[in-house]
């Protein structure tokens, strides 16, 4: 009788612990799916039409590739590698869960234009560096250290979710009048047939200061 009670107590403790662990691993909350007409585009178009004398907005750094990215709100501090394109024209992705990739076909972080960093949400059984990217809020900081030793400090302006087959190429890769940053990972449902997530999470940020 006592043995059964002990077993029940152990099971209760184990069950609660397991649920706590599950809660710890729960998927990050995600923003609702947006349509490709992002507010980021409208904003930059509006401001570039404004002043003729100053056609660009904010601080701009010269070209220098990124080496490290820090996102205090997500406790992220990771090395950055270069990413090109796959033979099919899609963007390469990092070969491990932790390293963050900088897309070399776009400007460097801190220079005029959209710099693009991609990281896994999960990969080969491990949570990726960008596992909780969808929980970033406008105002959160993203710090990118560059080869020239300068750290470009960005603040998040928007976090959106898009269906991959309606990826907003213009909003993410298109022309902007300031030094911008886009952080990309996966989200939405997982399609077990293709082995891919159906959506991408994109966090948009703007250069605020340099260190």
């Amino acid at each position, binding site marked *: *009788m006592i043995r*059964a*009670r002990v*077993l*029940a*107590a152990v*099971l*209760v403790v*184990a*069950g*609660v*612990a*397991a*649920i*706590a*662990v*599950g809660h710890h*691993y*729960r998927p990050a909350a995600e923003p609702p799916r947006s349509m490709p007409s992002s507010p980021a585009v409208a904003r930059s178009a509006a401001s*570039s039409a404004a002043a*003729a004398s100053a*056609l*660009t907005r904010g601080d701009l750094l010269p070209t220098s*590739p990124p080496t490290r990215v820090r996102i205090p709100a997500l406790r992220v501090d990771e090395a950055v590698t*270069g990413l090109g*394109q796959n033979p099919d*024209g*899609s963007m390469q*992705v990092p*070969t491990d869960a932790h390293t963050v990739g900088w897309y*070399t*076909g*776009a400007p*460097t972080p801190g*220079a*005029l*234009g959209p*710099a693009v960093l*991609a990281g*896994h949400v*999960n*990969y080969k*059984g*491990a949570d*990726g560096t960008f*596992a909780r990217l969808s929980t970033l809020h406008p105002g959160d900081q993203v710090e990118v250290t560059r080869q020239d030793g300068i750290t470009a400090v960005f603040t998040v302006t928007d976090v959106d979710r*898009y269906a991959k*087959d309606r*990826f907003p*190429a213009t909003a993410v*890769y*298109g*022309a902007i*009048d300031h030094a911008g940053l886009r952080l*990309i*990972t*996966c989200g939405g449902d*997982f399609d077990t047939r293709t082995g*891919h*997530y159906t959506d991408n999470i994109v966090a948009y940020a703007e250069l605020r200061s340099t260190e």
Partner: protein
Amino acid sequence: MTFRRALLTAPVVATLLLATPTAALADESVQVKLLELNHSGASGTATLTATDRGDLRISIRSRGLVPNSPHAQHLHGSTAGMDFHCPDMSADRDGNGYVSTEEGMPVYGDIFVSLTTAGDTAKASGLAVDRMPVADASGNLRYDRTIAAADLPPGTVEHLKDLHIVQHGVDADGNGKYDMAGLGESTLAKSAGLTGIPEEATDPALCGMVSGAAAGSVPVGGVATGDGSTRDRAAVWYGTGGLALLAALGIVVVTRRRSYVPSRNQR
């Protein structure tokens, strides 16, 4: 043997290629806004794209230019970190109401690349009007050319954002063409040894400054940043926890019943 070695080394090389940042420089596409100079009434946009091979693709769309006339056009500026920009009318030192090319140069810099339609693109081709694009009857001008990396001055791609596009050719007297009657003979052309070229043909009409930048090559579709491998982890833990609690409940119920039933029989 060699085949086997190739089999072994290929993945190593591939891994190295993937591991190191593939390019020190970003491909980028620089947007230029062409603003009117000398009250030309013209406007335009241009895109300068550095390709991954180091070539420079130039695309210019202007309107409101002198129709059916060639418009000399160049990249002005320097890669030496000089702070050149587009001039305003205060650059008109001789006060004739027009900023000439000579008056503009201290502000926007010397010719860096001549944007000819064919052949040489060096500074020496700056006045090669026979190889400059011609505006159509409505004054619209379209220009598209890719200049090979080998034909670009060193540092062009790295300093794209420091360069300015200038398009020349105004119609001062409003007669729809370049002639001596407008502003006389071009002193710039004359100093280069070309006589009989009207000043109207060489005075700048548009000057472009960088207004934005985009990715140089846009990847296809979304980004495959996840394999779903930890996606079910929470569900598995929740499930396990739930089962454990259920089992505990089961044990409690069973032991309660067992302890209850005998006590009833005893009575």
